[in-house]
């Protein structure tokens, strides 16, 4: 082990953590909002939209993340150019990575949200109607909170998954954790050191995320029977 290298490289790799988190968090927020909308569309069987969502989910689930990243990176500028005439080639690569990660999260989370919404008994909605709530009130106050409690363990898995997924953004030239480690390791062939650091960082991030989700799960799920918690 080359400890001098570690001492020098660690701060630089750590400095890339915000890039990784930025990609993961932005893609998660955008992806989950899309996912909820798609889940609602499919649950209410809105014609055309519902089928489009199903096809989208199937497609994203079937295409490896790397390919999604490449296609997003090369296709989006073309699409933007032909639609608006704006030259998007100078847009930083990170935004194309975020776009690809968003699509991925949208597809997977829509399945999670759909299952969670279905798990809420219809009687809950009817009871809300029976006391005079509007459908929107019933969804917001009764159905969504219950569905969220059901969805959280899977959402936690999705979030850790996307943290891992950001490592592939390296291949479209985003200087996140993995790319930075690689860049530092190559000149002196300090691969072991660089990747051990990287591994520890990713493990730490995953650990913290799992903890945060777990505590959210306990807080939001405290109404559930103790055996299920």
């Amino acid at each position, binding site marked *: 082990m080359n400890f001098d290298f570690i001492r020098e490289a660690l701060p630089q790799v750590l400095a890339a953590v915000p890039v990784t988190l930025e990609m993961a968090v932005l893609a998660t927020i955008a992806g989950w909002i899309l996912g909820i909308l798609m889940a609602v569309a499919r649950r209410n069987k809105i014609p055309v939209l519902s089928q489009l969502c199903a096809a989208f989910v199937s497609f994203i689930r079937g295409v490896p993340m790397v390919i999604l990243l490449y296609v997003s990176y090369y296709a989006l500028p073309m699409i933007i150019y032909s639609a608006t005439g704006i030259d998007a080639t100078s847009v930083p690569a990170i935004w194309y990575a975020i776009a690809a990660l968003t699509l991925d999260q949208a597809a997977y989370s829509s399945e999670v949200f759909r299952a969670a919404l279905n798990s809420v*008994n219809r*009687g*809950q909605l*009817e*009871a*809300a*109607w*029976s*006391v*005079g*709530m*509007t459908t929107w*009130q019933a969804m917001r*106050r*009764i159905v969504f*909170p*219950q569905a969220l*409690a059901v969805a959280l363990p899977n959402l936690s898995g999705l979030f850790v998954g996307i943290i891992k997924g950001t490592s592939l953004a390296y291949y479209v030239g985003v200087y996140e954790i993995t790319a930075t480690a690689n860049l530092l390791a190559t000149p002196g062939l300090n691969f072991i050191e660089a990747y051990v650091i990287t591994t520890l960082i990713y493990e730490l991030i995953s650990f913290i995320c799992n903890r945060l989700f777990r505590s959210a799960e306990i807080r939001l799920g*405290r*109404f*559930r*029977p103790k055996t299920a918690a």
Partner: protein
Amino acid sequence: MMVSLKNIRKSFGSQQVLNGVDLEIDVGEVVVILGPSGSGKTTLLRTINFLDPGDEGSVTVGNHTVNCKKHSRPDVLQLRRRTAMVFQNYNLFANKTILENVMEGLVTVKRRPKPVAEEISRKMLTRVGLSERFDYYPSALSGGQQQRAGIARALVLEPDVILFDEPTSALDPELVGEVLQTIKGIAETGITMIVVTHEIAFAKEVASRVIYMQDGVIVEQGSPSEILVHPKDPRTQRFLRRITDPSQDPKHIDMREDSPANEKSVPTSA
């Protein structure tokens, strides 16, 4: 007149569940609806607050009339705000405590300030015997306790009419009594109620009027003694014989009368 149903018709697919029901209920009446499984009694109750909208006919509660054929969302909402329902499976909001369950309608629908809603709700829960359980989630309560909370949730809204959908059918036998006692106590306060049930003894004791339904129509109605002691229609007689004389093998009963198979194809009316 508190509730008025005119020519309610309803079918699920090809299955005709309600075949033109007319019903008028006065202020303060306690109407008990009896009938075999699949007779349409639960569906009738659910057409009143449009959980299952009728295909034809009209529903009036108080002075608010909604036509089944062309009902708008605000119409239905108005109707639901004049009624309240107690469900067979309680349907307490699982993510809210008992107290929050009762407060929910007051806060979100009636726009009462929270402290006021909380005070009213506490009183109501105490009235149904749940003063020790305010902060429990429904999953931590027995069926009887949940159903009493369900009754409090309905009652607190001061509706024109409370609809009870087989309120004791899902309960363990030893818990039925406490819930029926609670309902009886409410009936005595003079609130208008419609109760779908299988509890004949309860009907005898509490009802001001008993209705016997079968095959989606009202067969006969009258005072408890008229219907339960001296029924005129042979269909009512057969139903009562079967229910009061458990030694009679249900397999020997005419299939036209008891059609559980039909009920199965109509999931929402179960």
